[in-house]
């Protein structure tokens, strides 16, 4: 179809074009005032989720490292010593309870602790700490050869001043930071347990154990740190 431009429509078009052709409108910038504060609150930087349980592999690796960086079979032999299963059975008895996944039975890894896992931590911790106390807290063992208790032999009588630096060393070993940064009162709480256990073992009426009172006290401190919630979570 052919379109013919008539004179009238050409005039209307010319008028429309001339009406649209204006110089641009200039808008002068203004200063924006900041919004008025209605309240001031501190920024919430707390973690937005619960702590999580360390993977069982991490626990096992750390445990072996604390035992002197030895393979699992050797750790088992050292933990058992000459006493059969008094302190340690064998790794196979502990793997499921520690939360390792069992692909054979389609059992996923445990991501939360349970009662049996806590009992297993206690059992394994006892083996580590008892053997380390036996080995380390003797005059004959030079400091560089000590597994965990790499401090001068503590006095036979509990002493808060002497306890603090030794506890700090263990605190750094197990929990990775100085004891002075821990929640207030932790050193005192551990010292109280240490003092009570030393006193209990030193009591002549108490049954005899294979550990001296001081060894028993430090074994308990070690046990408290290797089973500590901060040792198992991140």
């Amino acid at each position, binding site marked *: 179809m052919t379109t013919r431009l008539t004179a009238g429509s050409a005039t209307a078009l010319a008028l429309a074009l001339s009406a649209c052709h204006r110089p641009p409108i200039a808008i002068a910038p203004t200063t924006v005032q900041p919004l008025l504060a209605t309240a001031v609150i501190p920024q919430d930087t707390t973690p937005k989720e619960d702590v999580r349980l360390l993977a069982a592999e991490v626990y096992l690796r750390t445990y072996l490292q604390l035992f002197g960086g030895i393979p699992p079979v050797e750790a088992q032999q050292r933990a058992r010593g000459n006493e059969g299963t008094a302190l340690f059975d064998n790794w196979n008895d502990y793997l499921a309870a520690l939360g390792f996944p069992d692909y054979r039975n389609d059992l996923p890894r445990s991501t939360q602790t349970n009662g049996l896992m806590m009992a297993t931590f206690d059992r394994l911790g006892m083996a580590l700490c008892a053997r380390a106390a036996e080995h380390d807290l003797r005059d004959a063992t030079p400091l560089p050869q000590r597994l965990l208790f790499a401090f001068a032999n503590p006095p036979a009588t509990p002493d808060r001043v002497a306890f603090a630096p030794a506890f700090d060393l263990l605190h750094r070993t197990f929990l990775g930071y100085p004891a002075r940064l821990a*929640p207030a009162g932790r050193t005192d709480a551990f010292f109280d347990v240490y003092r009570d256990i030393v006193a209990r073992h030193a009591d002549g009426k108490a049954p005899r154990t294979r550990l001296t009172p001081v060894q028993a006290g430090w074994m308990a401190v070690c046990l408290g740190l290797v089973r500590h919630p901060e040792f198992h979570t991140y």
Partner: protein
Amino acid sequence: MKSNNAALPSRRDLLRQGAAGAAALLPGGLALRALADEQSFGDAGKDEFFIFIHAAGGWDVTLWADPRNTRAGLVEPASTANTETGGVRLWKDETMDGDIHSFKLLQPSGSNLVFGPGIGGLLDFHDRLCVINGLAMNTVSHPDGITFSVTGRHLQGSRSLQPSINTAMANELGLAQTFPSVSLQFPSSYCGDHLDRRAVPLMIDRVGNIAGVLSRAPQYALDGDAMAVTALLSQEATALASRSAYGDVLRGMALQYRSLPGMLSPQMQNLFNDAKLRAAHPEFKYQARGMGPSAVNAAFALEAMKRNLVRCVSFALGGFDTHAGNYRQQAQLQQTMFDIVATLLRGLDTTPHPTKAGAKLSEHTHILIMSEFCRTPQINLGGGRDHYPNNSALVISPRFRGNRTFGRTDPDQVLPLATRKFSDEQRAITPPDLLATFVSAFGIAPRKYFREGEVVPELLTG
């Protein structure tokens, strides 16, 4: 992490209210049926105990639940030619072919049930037995059959897609127990984000394994030493939780520290001690041929429920995979297994319920016995029977009708027959149907745990 906010209505409450509202508005039909499946029947299981038994290997149902003593079609029945009958107490010869004898069917007087001689001592409890025959398995693979039986879904690759029945029951009713679910070589699975971690089955190879974890060496610590450390750790966990914005994990650890002295008590160690369980329950025949030593699992179940420490105990009694000459012992094995169950029932009958005054454990204990499939009706060249996609199951529960058989198989091939109109079609019952029915008996919505399966009310009392 589950919320502890008691003010919010639970999903179950919402479903219950929704179902009630829908019932008021809608005429029956599929919509209501679907809602009824989801509807809760109430928290009716808090004092109940559960025992799940897996007859490992695939049992021959023609020797007990679906007995055959004549030749028909493919069926070559158990006979003196292929079975050692000497030790099978209930085997009474029935002439079949000259000198070859099969067995006489066992029908207790006044009972609807007919059994083969493999039922053993459980025959005395016929009035409590709910037998499901003609379970359509649609598999002859051990792993798949096992998984299908206990979860209601076939395997996907090698993975289970649904929680097993013991996990479901522990998740619903057992979280407050010291051990919600103890699983002794039972094919348990734990799948699903909606499950509480406490319901993870405590998988144990044998009862005695736990005793080691729970024992402590007196030569290294005095009685109070470990307790003092544990009390300190409980305080530490509580203090850390109070400083944390999200302290659930730490609070849980504090509770677990506190419960540790109880777990390490001599009483608990005795519970997981094989020798002490045997001494406490001499009524089980631990020397019986085949699976006699596994009777300690039944003793454990009895003892753990008596002390109210568990909700579910699951274990396997095995040796039924008789492809060759070992089929000759199949009847004997079944007798041993059902004898163990009968002894367990007697124990439950005489043991008081730990929390319900005046009640016996047997009034609140529910037993489900299943296998992965059954065995072929014909005898193979090796003298045994191979895998076959039919199955039977047994429920012994006050919530299931006793003295009842549901489902059937055809006479010539021992294959499942369609016995009931389900919502989809007329078909045979399947493991998902049985599992859905089982959980529904305790007010649990089946769809929470099982994608498939339909409740079969005919199996239930009330």
